[in-house]
């Protein structure tokens, strides 16, 4: 009983006052961990102090007038107006301040735009609502999804330390190397931001944007999508792990091997039960955001799959819509987002879950053949 009461108390506390347990009252920008972010921070502080000084002078004169030149204090109004010298001065002085400010800003900007001589190239693609990272020189890539449980978002569970800023597969980069990011998007415009790096760039469909960073401090750095990209815009964080070079190389080797294993899985003979098990997992990460975990969807934008003609009738049409998407709607083409195994598993799952008991299954090999025919 006591244990239950304690747990209930902890849960209640976490639900009602998540702010107090984890809160901070940060006032300022972080200087960050890269050269760029430090330069930005110093620009930010310079312009902030310039504003503060101008503010103190201007508001000082104003408050002096408010206190000393009140009618109730017997102030008699002066009648002066227009003074060419004063007017020229208060035009020239701000202009000079601006020029002084523009010089370091220009230098920093030039530096930020210099994406040459990179040592690692990573393609970042924004999807509704996840990031894809492709190591273009290493021939592997993966998706990075929010890993905060739904129960925490809907207040059924106490929120964790990195609530909404945690993912299943973080981006991994080596420290001390110039990493170039090539950004694009698959559907709408997203924006990739890691505050500690001072890196923010829009990922735009049909465009490839470039930016770069060099991180010297190993660590985990968190950011978010910063361009409104639809329903789950607030739920697609960016997590970057900067690791020492040896660790990075080992990780790359392991990832390449895993990619190879995944390709071989396509050739394996899969049973219904195996596909259903894998399909449920793949469905949760790739499909449930729109079509919901119970297949009920959110019509009209996101139709239900439970009992739908697509998921219960013609199999070819079902494969087509999952692989190629449906243009003019939010339904993306998953052909390049998921492996053949996951595609087969998801389709099989959708045709047999939630009472869609068609008993039909599709194998990874069939998906492979289907994609090659196209």
């Amino acid at each position, binding site marked *: 009983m006591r244990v239950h009461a304690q747990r209930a108390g902890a849960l209640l506390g976490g639900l009602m006052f998540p702010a107090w347990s984890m809160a901070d009252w940060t006032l300022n920008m972080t200087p960050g961990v890269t050269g760029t972010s430090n330069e930005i921070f110093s620009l930010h502080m310079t312009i902030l102090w310039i504003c503060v000084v101008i503010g103190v002078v201007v508001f000082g004169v104003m408050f002096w007038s408010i206190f000393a030149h009140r009618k109730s204090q017997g102030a008699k109004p002066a009648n002066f107006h227009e003074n060419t010298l004063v007017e020229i001065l208060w035009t020239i002085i701000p202009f000079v301040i601006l020029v002084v400010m523009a010089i370091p800003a220009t230098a920093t900007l030039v530096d930020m735009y210099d994406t040459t001589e990179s040592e690692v190239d990573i393609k970042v693609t924004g999807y509704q609502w996840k990031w894809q990272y492709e190591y273009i020189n290493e021939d592997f890539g993966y998706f990075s999804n929010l890993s905060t449980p739904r129960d925490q978002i809907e207040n059924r569970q106490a929120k964790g330390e990195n609530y909404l800023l945690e993912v299943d597969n973080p981006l991994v980069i080596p420290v001390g190397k110039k990493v170039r990011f090539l950004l694009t998007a698959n559907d709408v415009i997203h924006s990739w931001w890691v505050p500690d790096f001072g890196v923010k760039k*829009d990922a735009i469909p049909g465009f490839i*944007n470039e930016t770069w960073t060099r991180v010297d401090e190993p660590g985990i750095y968190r950011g978010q999508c910063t361009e409104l990209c639809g329903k789950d815009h607030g739920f697609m964080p960016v997590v970057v792990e900067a690791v020492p070079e040896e660790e990075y190389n080992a990780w790359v080797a392991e990832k390449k091997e895993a990619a190879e294993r995944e390709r071989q899985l396509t050739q394996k003979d899969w049973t219904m039960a195996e596909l259903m098990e894998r399909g449920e997992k793949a469905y949760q990460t790739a499909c449930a955001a729109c079509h919901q975990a119970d297949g009920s969807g959110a019509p009209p934008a996101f139709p239900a799959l439970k009992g739908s003609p697509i998921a219960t009738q013609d199999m070819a049409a079902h494969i087509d819509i999952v692989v190629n998407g449906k243009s003019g709607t939010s339904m993306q083409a998953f052909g390049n987002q998921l492996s053949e195994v996951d595609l087969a598993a998801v389709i099989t799952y959708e045709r047999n879950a939630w009472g869609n008991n068609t008993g039909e299954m599709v194998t990874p090999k069939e998906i492979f053949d289907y994609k090659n025919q196209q």
Partner: protein
Amino acid sequence: MAVTGVFMSAVADTHAQDHHHGPAKGISRWLLTTNHKDIGTMYLIFSFAMFLLGGTMAMVIRAELFQPGLQIVQPEFFNQMTTMHGLIMVFGAVMPAFVGLANWMLPLMIGAPDMALPRMNNWSFWLLPCAFLILVSTLFMEGGAPNFGWTFYAPLSTTYGPPSTTFFIFAVHIMGISSIMGAINVIATILNLRAPGMTLMKMPLFVWTWLITAFLLIAVMPVLAGVVTMMLMDINFGTSFFDASGGGDPVLFQHVFWFFGHPEVYIMILPAFGAVSHIIPAFSRKPLFGYASMVYAVGAIALLSFVVWAHHMFTVGIPIVGQLFFMYATMLIAVPTGVKVFNWVATMFRGSLTFEAPMLFAVAFVILFTIGGFSGLMLAIAPADFQYHDTYFVVAHFHYVLVPGAIFGIFASAYFWLPKWTGHMYDETLAKTHFWLSFIGMNLAFFPMHFLGLAGMPRRIPDYALQFADFNMVSSVGAFMFGATQLLFLLIVVKCIKGGKEAPAKPWDGAEGLEWTVSSPAPYHTFATPPEVK
């Protein structure tokens, strides 16, 4: 001949009305009126209704953001609220309020009997309720209201927009027509109907700022119409202006939108500059420090507003030369804006100040708008903008220029001219309470947003990481306080219309201008014979 005939009869009618007719009775007075005062009143009432509606949506947003986690609304509806809040406040509350003030005050300030195009005036008002009926009705449509932000970036608003987007486009078209007609009317009135002797450089500043605003409106509202028409084509007629997979360009959308959007920002603030330039001298009992430099500064701001649009797009990847150009041009705006602020402060300096409600709002306008200007200058620094862009820092910035800028400017104007409109003095104690609660609520709501943005909280998110929790709670409390306080304004105005101390023709001893030469309340028809300005 026929044309002369029409003019003759119009003149004859005016004379007849002068001597025998007041307003028509019943609903037809409002539906069919061509009287600038009636139309001004309708604009102001409409704008306040929209202010409350848009404000209610802000309350929904702040209630959801009170704590981390999803409590009250789902993300789909949250996005509809942020979008509709922005659209309604910009196009429904702020712009019509200034048109209402223009309708009431421009003819009175330049000694004209009415606006130059009274029938068009009626039409441009009545289009607005139609446009907003369409816009608000999208909330009840299948798929919900527009959910892509008030900036409606493609392709989120085209390929991925809800079915109601087409209605939204239609509503924007109608609002645009209304604004353009209003602007034509303002220009025609100011250029043609000034009292003899009132040269351009003798015009009151509110008239000057509205003249420049009207030119901005005519220049950019068609651009807005163009961009929504391109969206309409993309959605319904198979074109690919903004669809990359059809060879289109999503960034083109942003260029066209912000070519409208940046001057639009000044459309929402310049008339407030004008009004404040009357109020501060009136309550300082001292002439405005630099009339001519104020006029030139407004002109300079208006011109610069056309060459800075891409500072809203520093992160889209425009080439570095473009980036530098837009950074320098944007920083330059600080110069004429500074000139205006220095002028207001120099006007107060060694005056004889009193602090009735209009002055309180005007002084708060200068201080808080300047704070918004400072954050604007920070945002202009392109490298730093990479950190600020699309965070709550931007939300703080534009609410500091729009709430204490545009909205406080409107409140200041309303209190300043209410005695002229109603013939009664408003309740000064209530008005001061309205000011102080608004002032505290507004700062409590929006100042912490600077901290949130700098700490890394993106805008337009329905839920947030735990380190943002404290300031969000403070901000929500401030927002509720600010929102609730506005009902007090309704009470003050109703009370003032119903009765109160009789207002003399010139209730403020330091006020200047033709509007104070007519009795209070201003008669239904004024300046049938133009006054002489020396």
